[in-house]
């Protein structure tokens, strides 16, 4: 294969190059490798299929019992009480509120930490602080939940200065803040790796043109690492939506259609956890609600991810 062929094909860094190589002289080792790699990738598809299959049957059974319109528009969720109501909106609003609070903490602080570690910190500091942050990621979520409940909530109750009632024993604010702190390492670690991988020539070039460190960081490094940073953000959002233990323990088990963070509210994941580890006989409507809510969660994250992949693709800058 000639160098020019390689240079041209490498522009897409994809099948073109592989096909060019394989067409010249089939290397069975290469084909075997390709095959096993495809299998690895397909495993993720198999997992999704399995999840969909596991979720689908009870969900369909549920929707035969409760109309989807009722499910999506009723404002009360009390499926396991004796006179059940099946409106998913309270769970949905709670998931939204908690995710929003968590992201307000995790995204700016995560990115800020990442920028500091990548651009300003000495290698020794970086080597010390980055692992410390990663320890934060390993603390069991149960511990965070109880920390929110027993330490943060009383603290918030004491220093509450905003209008409206101070937060009660369960409230979305404590859970959201703690969840945000828990997600910081995820965002920071990945974003930092992305920025560390930006070639130094770019920074050098920027400095040579007289830019300050601030300008270089904000206008050169961050845009170059944008794909990685956005991936870090998306992973952070995914974590926030799917988090179960912290919200169960600190935000409570009472569904509540409200956007006031000082109130208690039950998210979709908290409901699934509470009902899933509980006493519902298999096959009952109560049991099926778990799957219906699970499917809703799955659908929402799917749509959100499709959107974000499209956005990332558009703004990703490729250097070299």
């Amino acid at each position, binding site marked *: 294969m000639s160098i020019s062929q*390689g240079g041209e094909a*490498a522009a897409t*860094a*994809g*099948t073109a*190059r592989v096909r060019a190589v394989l067409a010249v002289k089939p290397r069975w*080792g290469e084909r075997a490798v*390709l095959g096993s*790699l*495809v299998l*690895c*990738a397909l*495993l*993720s*598809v198999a*997992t*999704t299929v399995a*999840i969909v299959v596991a979720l689908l049957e009870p969900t369909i059974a549920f929707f035969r019992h409760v109309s989807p319109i009722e499910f999506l528009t009723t404002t009360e969720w009390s499926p396991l009480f004796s006179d059940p109501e099946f409106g998913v909106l309270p769970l949905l609003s709670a998931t939204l509120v908690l995710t929003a609070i968590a992201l307000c903490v995790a995204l700016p602080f995560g990115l*800020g*930490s990442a920028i500091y*570690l990548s651009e*300003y910190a000495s290698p020794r500091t970086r*080597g010390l602080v*980055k692992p410390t942050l*990663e*320890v934060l*990621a*390993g*603390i*069991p*979520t*149960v*511990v965070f939940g109880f*920390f929110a409940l027993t*330490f943060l909530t009383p603290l918030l109750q004491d220093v509450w200065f905003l209008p409206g009632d101070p937060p009660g024993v369960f409230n979305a604010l404590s859970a959201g803040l703690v969840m945000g*702190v828990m997600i910081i390492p995820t965002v920071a*670690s*990945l974003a930092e790796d992305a920025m560390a*991988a930006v070639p*130094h020539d770019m920074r050098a070039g920027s400095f040579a043109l007289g830019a*300050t460190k*601030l300008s270089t960081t904000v206008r050169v490094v961050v845009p170059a690492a944008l*794909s*990685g940073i956005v*991936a870090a953000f*998306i*992973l952070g*959002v995914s*974590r926030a939506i*799917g988090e179960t233990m912290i919200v169960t323990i600190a935000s409570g088990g009472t569904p509540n259609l409200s956007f006031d963070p000082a109130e208690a509210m039950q998210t979709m994941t908290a409901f699934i*956890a509470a009902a899933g*580890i509980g006493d519902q006989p298999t096959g009952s409507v109560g049991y099926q609600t778990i*799957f219906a809510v*699970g499917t809703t*969660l*799955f659908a929402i*994250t799917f749509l959100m*991810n499709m959107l974000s*992949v499209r956005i990332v693709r558009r703004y990703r800058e490729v*250097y070299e």
Partner: protein
Amino acid sequence: MSDLAGPNPAPEGLYAQPARAAEVLGRQRLRERAKNALFRGLLLFSLLLGVVALVVLLADVLDRGLGHVWQVVTSFPSGLPARAGAQSAIMGTIWLMALVALFTIPVGVGAAVYLEEYADRSRRWNRLIEVNIQNLAAVPSIVYGILGLGFLVRGFVGLGQTLLAGALTLSLLVLPTVIIASREALRSVPDSIRHGSLALGATPWQTTWRQVLPAAIPGIATGTILGLSRAIGEAAPLILLGALTFVTFNPEGLNSAFTALPIQIFNWISRPQDEFKLLAAGAILVLLVILLSMNAFAIWMRSRYQKRW
């Protein structure tokens, strides 16, 4: 400055008044420096939030649990707080983490390599896989528990309520994180490296194995750390699968019944007796030590292979 009007034109505007120019530029430089300092301060503040939160949490846990760590490590679960420990849970967690690492690293990196190096990005099939993986990262852990129960414990694979089923379920939970992080790591390797290798006559796999992957190890290590950190603290899916809360023996093989530290911690926290909460703090410390050792290894790998281009 306007376009050049010939050799050595007379200086205009600010440049004609050197003294004033120096003053203005000096002020600008000061403003720039202030902005830079403020920016740096804000970043440092962001960093400190996470670190301070960790220190506060650790201080609380250490204060409560340090005295009980020995009992937690050497005894087995019991109804009496004076006798209770979590050795079976500790061994269960260690076995689980080892198996999860063994499974997710090759499969996760393999999938990432396929998606980054071999797949044709313009085909819809590959885009779907991408979205699919990101979606899986957001699925709550308990849904993985349902999945494991339906397919791994019963049904298709039928492993029963064993250590292997638990490890595989956790691996599926963690796989999306590892894949996403590995992909970013692979993306960050400059294409010039690949071009150079191919130009010298290497096959795509040789290029990947000998040039791209070693360069991507830091990012892959980060992804693995994040993934394993999550897996080590998960209780809900394991409970659904049949990890028990009361086991008085260490795991004896892949087919053994088992328990894990987060389950034991959650169980102890929910007991009425206050002494159990102290034991729970001790168990949390043990969990963090295990986590730190795993991380230390991965960090060593990361720093060893870290390259700055």
